[in-house]
Each structure stands twice: as C-alpha cells, then as structure tokens.
C-alpha cells in the first residue's frame, strides 16, 4: 500500500511532466503566431563600442557569438531567398570591433555583403570597408588583400583597383606567389576567361572551408559554360558569314568547324543551337552562375550545389 508521501511524489512527478509538455506545445503554437521577421531583424544594442565595454574583457567570446549570429542571420535570409539584409553589415561591424583579428568574419563577411541579392546583400562598398578595416588590423595577412581584390573584380568590375590590391597583397611577407601573377593578369587581361578561371582556381586551392571550395567549383563550371557558348556562337556567326546562311543543326556546325564531336557542358549534356544562332544549355538550373547560354526569359531558382568537385 502506497504511503501518502509516495502518492505525493507520483502526483508531483506526473504534474511536472504534463506541465512541461504543455509548455513546449504552447510555445510551438506561439512561435507560429509571431512574425518571424520581427524576431530576426532586431539588434538590441547597435553600438559595437558599447558591446565591447559590456563584455567585461571577454570580447573574444562575444565576437564568436556575434559571428555565429551573423552566419545564422545570413543563412536564414539566404535560405528564404530574401532581398534585404539590413542587419548584416551592423552585425559584421560589431563582430570585427569586438575581435579585429577574427579573419573568417572578414573573408566570409565580404562574400556575404558583396554579391547582388539574393546571393548576398548587394553592398560591395560595405564589403570593401570591412576588408580595409581587416587589412588595417591584420596587415600581414595576404589573403585579406586577395579577398578585397576579388570584390573589386567580381562585383564592381573595377579591374584597376583589383590589380592595385593584388599588387599590395603580393608585397606582404609570405604572400602566395600567384598574387603577383594576378596583379599583372588583372592589369592586362581583366575581362578574360583565363583571368576568371585563375581567380576561382586560386580560391579553390587556398580555401579550407568545403562550402567555399564548392562555390569555386560552381564558378569554374560556369566559366567553362560561358566560354563554350561564346566560342560556339562565334563559330555560328563565322559559318553564317562564310555560307550566307545559318547552319541547319549543331552537327553541321561541328562538321564545318572540325570539332571533335557535339560539344557538351560540364555535366555531359549537349549544347542546343537555336535557329537565330543562340547556344543554350540543357539544364540552366544546374549552373547557377552562368551569364551565357540561358533560355530567353529564364528566371533562376535558388542555387543548387553539386556534390562532385
């Protein structure tokens, strides 16, 4: 027979479990009712200096927390295909003020800030400010110069500035030898596919993070497609000029240009030739960064990354 004390224990334990389950269920319902954006887009303290003071000297830990918050913020907005990243730049400013030596915040932060939405925040100027602050605090890190030059090259197409930055970076002790080559290449052949391929190959070789390496692979695939399409469209124009009519098919163009076979994209799918001389890829969604070979009126979906390298 149970004593009164045992009964109380059983009832209290059951009450505890039921109450806890009820709380969890209710909170889940409440979360669905509250607008998500109002939770995400709030920075309670905007001033980096105030946060640094409030961290009581443990600013390294605070920087890690704010960097994690930045990554989560960007990840959620990117996943939602958002076009605004209002808190991204302030979050990065706080992170790097708390810890000016936190290199990932500069390297990844610039790649979050610079690209056009929805790939990034579309704020290349803020990305440049961030990188310059990083270089000011870590002048011996050549990779920061590389990242800054990259922003000038890819987002602003300012090849002269890009060349200057690569040159500055090449003078840093222990800088990778390709910085000198990049500076020269940028000054002379900035818009070439070769230059673009060199930049992304360098990114692939020097990045430690799998996602960055994968991103480089996708860009290299896109460069390959852009180059193939440019080449094939030039062959089409040449055929047209020589014969006074367009080629009837890709096979006729291939035969006339003495190519080895029907040209294929990096996935092995044959390029399609339209009667008006446009060369198209079979599945544009598989090449998120291509600028050529896209069907008319094509709207890109969220970027798909391939598992192969």
């Amino acid at each position: 027979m149970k004593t009164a004390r045992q009964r109380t224990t059983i009832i209290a334990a059951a009450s505890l479990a039921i109450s806890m389950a009820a709380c969890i269920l209710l909170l889940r319902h409440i979360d669905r009712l509250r607008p998500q954006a109002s939770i995400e887009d709030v920075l309670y303290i905007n001033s980096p200096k105030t946060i640094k003071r409030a961290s009581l000297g443990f600013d390294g830990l605070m920087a890690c927390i704010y960097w994690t918050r930045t990554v989560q913020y960007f990840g959620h907005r990117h996943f939602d295909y958002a076009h605004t990243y209002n808190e991204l730049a302030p979050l990065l400013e706080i992170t790097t003020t708390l810890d000016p030596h936190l290199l990932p915040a500069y390297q990844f932060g610039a790649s979050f800030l610079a690209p056009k939405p929805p790939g990034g925040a579309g704020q290349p100027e803020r990305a440049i400010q961030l990188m310059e602050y990083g270089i000011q605090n870590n002048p011996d890190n050549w990779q920061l110069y590389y990242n800054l030059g990259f922003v000038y090259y890819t987002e602003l197409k300012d090849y002269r500035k890009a060349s200057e930055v690569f040159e500055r970076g090449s003078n840093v002790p222990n800088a990778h030898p390709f910085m000198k080559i990049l500076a020269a290449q940028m000054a002379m052949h900035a818009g070439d596919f070769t230059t673009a391929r060199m930049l992304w190959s360098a990114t692939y070789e020097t990045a430690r993070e799998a996602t960055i390496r994968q991103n480089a692979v996708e860009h290299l695939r896109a460069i390959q497609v852009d180059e193939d399409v440019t080449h094939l469209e030039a062959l089409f124009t040449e055929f047209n000029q020589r014969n006074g009519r367009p080629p009837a098919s890709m096979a006729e163009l291939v035969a006339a240009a003495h190519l080895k076979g029907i040209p294929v994209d990096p996935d092995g799918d044959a390029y399609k030739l339209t009667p008006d001389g446009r060369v198209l890829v079979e599945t544009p969604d598989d090449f998120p960064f291509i600028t050529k070979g896209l069907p008319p009126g094509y709207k890109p979906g969220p970027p798909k990354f391939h598992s192969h390298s």
Partner: protein
Amino acid sequence: MSPRIAYIAANTFREAVRDRVLYNLIAFTLLLSGAAIFVGQISIDIERLVVINLGLTAVSLFGVVIAIFIGIGLVSKEIEKRTLYTVLSRPVRRWEFIVGKFFGLAGTLVVNTFFMAIGVFGALLYVTHKFSKPDALILVALYFIILEFLVICSLALLFSSFSSPLLSAVFAFSLFVIGSFADDLRGFAGMAHGLTRWVATGAAYLVPNFSALNVISAVAHQQPMSSQLILQNTLYALFYSAMALSGAVLIFERRNLK
C-alpha cells in the same frame, strides 16, 4: 609556511570541496565546453576559437563566482557558527587564520581550474583532432586566470573581515567589474584635469587591473606572450593580493569578536 597556516588551509580546502555548489559549477563548466563544440558546428571556421574563448571565459567567470561566494563566507561563517573561538583559543594567531583561509581558498581554485582546464583541452582535442605548439599558450592564459583568482580571493577575504556576506559579495563583484574597466579608468584619468585627474588616477591604480590579466582573445589568436608580461603580471598579482591580505589582517586583528 607555518604548520598552523597549512592546517587551516587544508581544512578550508576540505570544507570547500565538500561544498556541493563547487561540484555543480565544475560540471556546468564542462557542459559549457561541450556547448563550445555545438556553437562551433553552427558557425563558420571558428571552432577552435570558440572552444578556447568559451572554455577560458567559463573557467574565469565560474572561478570568480566561486572565489567570491566562498571567500565572503570564510570569516563570517566561522563567527556565525562560533567555530572561530575554538580556533583562536588554540595557539593560532589571527593573521595566521586569515592567511590560512586565503591559501585554502586559493588551493581550492587551483584544483578547480586544473579540472576545468582538462575539460577545455579535451574539447580542443575533439575539435582540432591534435594539439599544436601554440596551444601551449592556453596554459599562460590559465595561469593568468589563477593570478586573477588570487586577487579576488584576497579581496573577498578583505571584505569578509569587516562586513556581512551580502555586502562583501556586492563589494567584491563590483571591484571585479571596475577592475575589468581599469584601462578605461586610466584613459579617463588621462583626459581629466585638476583634482578629478588626481582622484581618477588614484582610483585607477587602487582598483585591481584585471584587463592586464585577461589574455584569452590574444591566446585564441595564437599571439605570443612575452616572458616580461608573465613575470610582471605575476608580481602584480602577488603584490596586490599581499596588499589586500595585509588590509584584511589589519582589520581582523583589531576586530572585537566578543
């Protein structure tokens, strides 16, 4: 060290170890180190930094909490339980009692830090899979944290020698916060003029400078520590602790215990 001081220190250590709060805090710190691994997984490229920053910050903060909350009760609890009279009725001098309590609490914190450090290094090994030479710098940060504990222990004892536990906790914690801003206080003194400058400069030198002992961020970035900094921080912490302990002895020697 006299055998009487050693005996009081050993008893203080034993008493602190028996305190269940101490065990809970160690477990909590180890849990925090575990959390560091989780944070590392939801962020990018800062796994090592998170483990070191979070681990060492946890070691420091929990040690400070232990130092304050045990330190403030070391004298007042003995008076409240009337065990102090038994001790002082034997051939034990009042200053020996204070110094013994200090060494007992410091010993407790060193042992405590040792176990917390094992947690930090374990978490680091889990994240990086191997130790590298710069990881040895973590030992320097841990040493500075222990120096910080010595200062806080002596301050807690100083306040405990004349005040109630609650007020002692408030004083000690306030000094910890002010001491973390010591560099700013000195900067403020530099900008002030006249009497304000003298008062601010005096205050800046009187409060403990904990910011000099906090090298967690630098160690996380593998920045080398000069032997001069280690030596001078050691001397600073020892002299500051000696100063606070001397104050505690002076007050306790004159305190009417009747």
